[in-house]
Structure formats: C-alpha cells, structure tokens
C-alpha cells in the first residue's frame, strides 16, 4: 500500500461522500463549527465553504459546475467555495433520474432559490446587527458591505457556531440576469483537475477495506438457459470464495480481481446452454419491425381547409439499426450487505429509483437500502449501470460482511446493455406546384425507448430479476407520451405544413433489451425528416436552407438558420457532385428544448468519407457556462457522427455478434472533424437542455452532405461512402 486511507480520502476531494461507509464518520466537513443548512440542498459552513447537495448526477456533462455557478451567483461568493456532494439516498434531494437534458431546467430553479434564501436570511441577520436597512447592504464573496464600506460581518461570522436548519421556501427574490457575474461565464469545470492528475474521481477508484471482486457469467444469448454446468473445479481455484448460481444468474467471487476473471472464464467453458434461436437477422430487422406485433398510437395531426390544388406525392423510407451506448467503462458497482443493511455504490443515473427497484427485486425494505452515486465514464442514457448495481446487490446479500465489487467485462456491456431501438420510418408528402409541402404523412415503427427500472413495477427489467431461479415477469412495454415522446420524440416536424399526420407503431415484441439512448427517437426522426426536406428541396431545385426557411414561422428557428448560413459561409457551398459536400440538418430538440442547426462538410474520395468541419448554431436560452455548453454540443456532434457512419449492433438468429470494439467500431481520433459552435444571445430567455440537441441534426447534415458530394441518396444508417 502506497497510499494511506486518510491521504486517499483527502485526495478524493469532492467525491469524499462516496467514501463514507455506514458507520464510519463522514469526512466531508472539517471541525465542529456551525452551519446553515437549507433543506437538503445547501449547507453553508462557518469555515467558509458551501456544500451543494446534488439531486442530479455528474457524468462529465458539467452539471455540477453549472449548478455551483448558480449557487455562487445567488450567494455572492467566490465560485471556489462551492463543493459538490453526489447523490446519496440518505441525504440528497430526490430528483429521480438525470435524463432528457433537463437537469438545468429541473435542478437549477430550486438550487438558485435555496442560495437566494440563504443570502436573504444571512443579510437580515446582518441588518439587525448593524442596525441598517437590508437594502443598503451588499455582499462580496460573503463579506457584508454597507455601500462600499466593509463591515466586520460576513456569512461565516454570522453563522458562528450555531447549527441553523431552514426549510426551503418557494417565494424568494432572485438576482436579475443583468446583475449576473458568475453565471454566463466559462468557468473551468470543478472535476477536471482531479481527472488529469489521477485523483480518485470514479467509482472504479473506490477501494473499500476488505473488498472482494466479482464477475458475472452471462448466458450465451438473451433468454438462453443453462443446460449443464460444472462448478466443482472452479470452486477450488486459488482465491475463489464463492461460485454463485441462481437460475441463469451465475457469478464468481474471489479475493483478487484477476482470480475472479480467470475463474469466470473457466466457468463459462463448463456451461452448455439451451439457445432459443429467436432473434431476427440484423440485416432483416426492418422487415421484422414492419411486421412484428405493434400498437398504433396517433402522435399528431393537423388539417386545414385551404385548397391544396394539384399536388404530387413523394415518398421515402429511412432506417436506423440497433445501436449501443458503448460506454468506455464497462458497468461496475460495489455493494455491501451488513446487519440487514445494504449499501450500493453505483454510477446509474438515478439513485432513488434504483433503490426502489433493488428493494423490490431483493424483497427488502427501502429503509434498509442506501444507494450512493459515484461517477464512471459517460453513460449517454440507460446503459448497464442499473443492472450491474442490482447484480452487485444480489451478490452482496449472498456474500454478506465484505464489500463486493462487481466489474462487467467489455463483452458483458456490449451484449447486455439495453440498446437504442432500431427504427423504420415511412414518409409521404404531397407537394404543390411551387414545391411547398401541403400534406405530410409520417409513420414510424420502433421498439420502446425506455425500460428503466424506475420503480417496483418496472424492476423486472433488471437482468438479475430476469435471470434468477424465480424470474420476475417482464414489465409490459412502455410508451413515452408526447410532448417528450419516446420513439416519436421529434417525430413532429417544426415546419408549417397545412396537413399532417404522424403515427407511431410501437413494436411490443422485444427481441433484445432496449432502452433510452441519448435523444431516444429524436436521432432517427430528425435524420428522416431533415433528409426528406433535403430531397424535397433538391426536387424543387431550391437551396436547402432557403427551402426550410419558407416552411417555418418559428422566429427563433429562423434566426438560428440565418445565423448558420453566415457562420458556415453557406453561400460558398461548392457545386453538387464535386466530391466535396456540405449538408444541413436542423431541429428543436423535443420541439420544446434547444434549437440546433448543423452544417457538415465532407469529402468523399476513393470510397472514403472524411468529415472536415461541422459548424453548429444553438439557441438554448440563457447559457450558464458557454464553454461547457459548447463542449456538450461538440460531444453530441462527434457521437452522432460515430452512430451515423459506423455503428450497428449485429446479430444472427442465435446471438449477438457485436461483442467488443473490433466488432462494434466507433469513430476514432483520425476521423473526427473540427467543430465550431455558436450560441444565440438569449440570456433573457429560460435555459434549455442541450445534451441531446445536436445528434439528429448531425446525422441529417452528414447524409445531406454525402448526397451533395456524390449525388447518391442514402436512407439507411449507418451511411457508407
């Protein structure tokens, strides 16, 4: 051991709360000095620090830093005083999942109010002591001033050694945007230094005393079952502590990680499986989707009395395969079961929902379970994290007294995470003589886009619940209704078509696990709508952006497209068919969040597609941290480019064939374009989520650029040269 536990705890900085075991003293706050605690959001410590208890989880999207900026702004303190605590069901606000790019919208207002309330309370105290009206006082980094004159008071002294607890109220005066000096600035993210110096930043860096290591041995296919297994030899391998078998849930626990790995690999070789051979072929998936059992749900319709005159009908269909979250860190979790109490450290997106689901699956009381969030790599939606947490919890209960660290292998993640569903989309438009769309019919076929184990009823979605000897019933497929929509997210175009009919065919048969992948249906729907708009513009021999503009009446959408024409130098677009192509894609995420337009420039040469440059323009209302917001859009563009050009989960009748990074390649360093992101100045408008806003537009921009470069229209993802 080169690092002591204490040094280790100190080094772990903001994540310290992760390391607090039940029964151990927490080391989050120094000394015994007083504090003012605002509900379960904020704790202002007399030692000059402020703790923000997050309700949403960080996974590199910068939510912690953005919320800390809001706290520092409303409190008038230096940003550096704010420390973050991860979600912990023993103490944090319950904000359910971190999803749908709504963290700033959901977490921002209560966080801001808590900080403003604290400031109000402390200033009222100061006013009493100074015998001055409150409105003559100012605060600079916690120091109270009258006008420009310092007083001997500051927040920290006003708290002293009192322990103040205050309930949150809804009614508080917030600072006006024009007075902001911290919100709206590109401050450096709080978590980055620790990550570049190798501090303990991740769940993977959490090493508990006496911890043991586990690996699962998953069935060869979904719904496969064990025919024969021979555990005897494995149990005798060095370091092996337990071979767990509960129906088709099989795992090995060992002293050392390498021992668990080796034992799991050897155990796998002893098992023969009954394979259901019930998968459609990955190449025939669209036919399958079209014919599988489905439920028809109307999404939107619009009709107008106006005479459409003579029209021509244009049709096309678009397809997207099953695609993976493919997180860089395979899912992992640590669980400890001790004296009837279960603690689970997990990188899932919602600690409260996870606790409810695990309680149901394991038949425990919620009060006896604590779920603590620790970061892992980006998850991009519902990946294997929840399943790994439940696996670890089940193992901990079978192996009490020592923390069990379960690490999935790359293959486990690739073949068992719930994928983003394949989709098949058919569009038919009636176009009049001026090229204007007068009627729009849109039908989409898709499996569901969420199977989160969000509560007791949905807990049957967890792998352990399905694999154990007494399996849970698979919960019925969930349809996410408008206005957010699941498969139908962004299926309703923003364009002003006179007549419109949008229908979702929710495929209720589920050949493989599917759930929320960043953007849900928006990625494929925007790809389809924006590709088709491009086809219609070309048919009408109009400029692709001008064509869109004349079908729009949304002012902010129009402004984004006009700005995009400028920043992308759209007027310098090369002639069609030259091998260099420029394409546009545009959408407002969920039709109620951020607007994003992307122009992608590509070069097609010798059968190779080379992405040159992406210009993006975004309107997301008030931007809390412009650099952080830009990073989110950049990341969205690159990830979407990877989905669009490379990614498809492959399988045959028996099993999945995408099992690692060779069989499921993603976009590499030598394939990423340069990117510029411009934000519209809208600081007087509410903040809107951006994490999923660029993916759909990027896919269409690439498809349209390829068409522009080569004259070939591609309608099935992933696209090729």
């Amino acid at each position, binding site marked *: 051991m080169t690092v002591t536990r204490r040094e280790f705890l100190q080094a772990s900085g903001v994540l310290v709360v992760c390391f607090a075991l039940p029964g151990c003293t927490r080391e989050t706050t120094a000394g015994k000095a007083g504090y003012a605690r605002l509900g379960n959001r904020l704790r202002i410590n007399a030692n000059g620090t402020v703790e923000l208890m997050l309700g949403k989880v960080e996974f590199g999207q910068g939510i912690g830093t953005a919320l800390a900026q809001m706290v520092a702004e409303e409190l008038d303190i230096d940003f550096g005083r704010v420390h973050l605590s991860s979600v912990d069901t023993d103490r944090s606000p319950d904000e359910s999942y971190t999803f749908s790019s709504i963290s700033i919208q959901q977490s921002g207002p209560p966080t801001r109010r808590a900080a403003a309330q604290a400031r109000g309370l402390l200033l009222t105290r100061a006013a009493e002591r100074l015998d001055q009206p409150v409105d003559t006082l100012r605060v600079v980094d916690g120091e109270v001033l009258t006008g420009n004159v310092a007083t001997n008071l500051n927040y920290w002294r006003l708290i002293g050694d009192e322990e103040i607890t205050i309930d949150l109220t809804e009614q508080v005066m917030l600072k006006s945007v024009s007075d902001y000096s911290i919100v709206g600035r590109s401050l450096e993210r709080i978590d980055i230094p620790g990550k570049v110096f190798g501090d303990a930043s991740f769940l993977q860096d959490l090493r508990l005393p006496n911890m043991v290591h586990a690996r699962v041995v998953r069935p060869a296919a979904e719904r496969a079952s064990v025919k024969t297994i021979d555990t005897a030899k494995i149990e005798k391998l060095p370091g092996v502590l337990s071979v767990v078998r509960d129906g088709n849930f099989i795992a090995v626990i060992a002293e050392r990680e390498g021992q668990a790995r080796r034992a799991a690999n050897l155990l796998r070789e002893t098992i023969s499986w009954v394979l259901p051979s019930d998968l459609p072929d990955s190449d025939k998936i669209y036919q399958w989707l079209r014919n599988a059992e489905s439920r028809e749900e109307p999404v939107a319709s619009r009709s107008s009395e106006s005479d459409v005159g003579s029209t021509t009908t244009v049709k096309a269909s678009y397809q997207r395969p099953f695609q993976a979250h493919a997180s860089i*860190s395979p899912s992992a979790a640590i669980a400890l079961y001790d004296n009837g109490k279960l603690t689970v450290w997990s990188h899932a997106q919602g600690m409260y929902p996870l606790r409810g689901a695990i309680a149901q699956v394991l038949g425990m009381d919620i009060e006896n379970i604590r779920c603590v969030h620790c970061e892992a790599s980006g998850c991009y939606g519902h990946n294997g994290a929840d399943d790994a947490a439940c696996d670890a919890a089940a193992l901990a209960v079978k192996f009490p007294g020592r923390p069990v660290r379960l690490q999935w292998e790359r293959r486990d993640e690739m073949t068992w995470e719930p994928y983003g569903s394949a989709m098949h989309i058919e569009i038919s438009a009636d176009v009049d003589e001026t090229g204007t769309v007068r009627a729009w019919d849109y039908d989409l076929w898709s499996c569901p886009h969420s199977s989160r184990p969000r509560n007791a009823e949905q807990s049957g979605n967890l792998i352990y619940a399905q694999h154990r000897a007494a399996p849970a019933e698979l919960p019925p497929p969930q349809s996410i209704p408008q206005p957010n929509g699941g498969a139908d997210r962004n299926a309703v175009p923003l364009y002003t078509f006179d007549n419109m009919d949008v229908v979702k065919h929710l495929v209720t048969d589920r050949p493989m696990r599917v759930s929320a992948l960043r953007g849900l249906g928006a990625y494929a729907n925007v790809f389809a709508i924006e590709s088709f708009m491009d086809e219609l513009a070309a048919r009408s021999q109009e400029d692709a952006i001008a064509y869109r503009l004349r079908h729009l009446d949304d002012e902010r959408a129009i402004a984004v497209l006009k700005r995009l024409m400028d920043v992308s130098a759209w007027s310098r677009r090369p002639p069609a068919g030259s091998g260099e192509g420029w394409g546009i894609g545009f959408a407002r995420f969920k039709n109620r969040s951020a607007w994003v337009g992307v122009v992608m420039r590509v070069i097609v040469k010798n059968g190779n597609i080379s992405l040159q440059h992406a210009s993006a323009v975004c309107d997301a209302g008030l931007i809390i941290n412009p650099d952080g917001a830009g990073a989110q859009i950049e990341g969205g563009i690159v990830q979407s480019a990877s989905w669009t050009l490379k990614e498809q989960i492959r399988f045959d009748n028996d099993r999945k064939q995408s099992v690692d990074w*060779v069989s499921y390649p993603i976009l590499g360093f030598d394939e990423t374009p340069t990117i510029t992101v411009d934000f519209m100045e809208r600081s007087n408008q509410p903040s809107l989520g951006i994490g999923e806003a660029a993916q759909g537009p990027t896919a269409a921009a690439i498809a349209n650029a390829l068409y522009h470069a080569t004259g070939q229209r591609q309608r099935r993802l992933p696209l090729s040269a």
Partner: protein
Amino acid sequence: MAIIFTLNGKSVSVDVDAQTALLEVLRNDIELNGPKFGCGLAQCGACAVLLDGRSVRSCVLPVSAAAGKSVTTLEGLGNASDPHPLQSAFIEEQALQCGYCTSGIIVTAAALLAKNASPAEEDVKKELSGHLCRCGAQARMIRAVMRAAAQLEGSES
C-alpha cells in the same frame, strides 16, 4: 516471487503471480487511479502506461514484463503543484467530458511529445488513433496536445 520495477521514479516490489496483469497491480495493489480498465483486450487505450518511455496497454501485459523496467503512469507525469504541460493544457482546453479515457490519452501523448516535440496535427491524430473516446472530446484533446507541444517548444528555445 517478488517482481521489482521502477514506478513513477521510485522502486517498487510486488509479490503477486507473475501472470497478473500490470493494470491490476497498478490499480488494485498499488492503488493508483490513472490507468483505467476499459476493455481488457488492448482495444481502447484506457489502461495505457509508459514502459521505458513507450506507450503500452497494461491490461494485457503481465506484470513480469515490467520487471527491471521503468513504468510511468498519469500520476508520474506531474501533479497539481508541478503539472506536466499536457496536464495543464488539458485543463486549459477543458479537453475532457467524463475523463475516463483521459489518462491513457495523456500518457500516449506524452510519449509522442518526448520523441517529437513539434508534431503536426496529423501526427497527433495518428498517434492517438488507437485510443477511444466515447464522449466526443477528440477535437479538444487534439487542441490540448498541440497547445502542450507549443508550450514545450517555447520553454526549450
């Protein structure tokens, strides 16, 4: 049998099965956080460390292969009070999202800069092409490496 090697400038001795992956020894026995487990298949680069100055995949390298050699991890490149130019540049460019891939990328970039202090952007892309980043922070990381290179060059002239 004890295996002895130099780790981040200090001699260490570990007593483990010689076939144990170097990554496991670094992470679980020595409790370093830099090198990460991402695939265990030499496919992603999350586990990269320097072995006598060359970037290698510690997930598939038995610890015995390090015997008598020098291993450098992210932690050995620098720290908050004495950062490596790459570490400073990654902070300045805010060149990561989740940061899980970062350690391996910085380590490989350090090996590149050690042999070529003024690489072209194409060299950087090529050198890093064996590393995967799922968050899409590649463009920023390339900028960060170029910034570090410029800084190194400036300090040498």
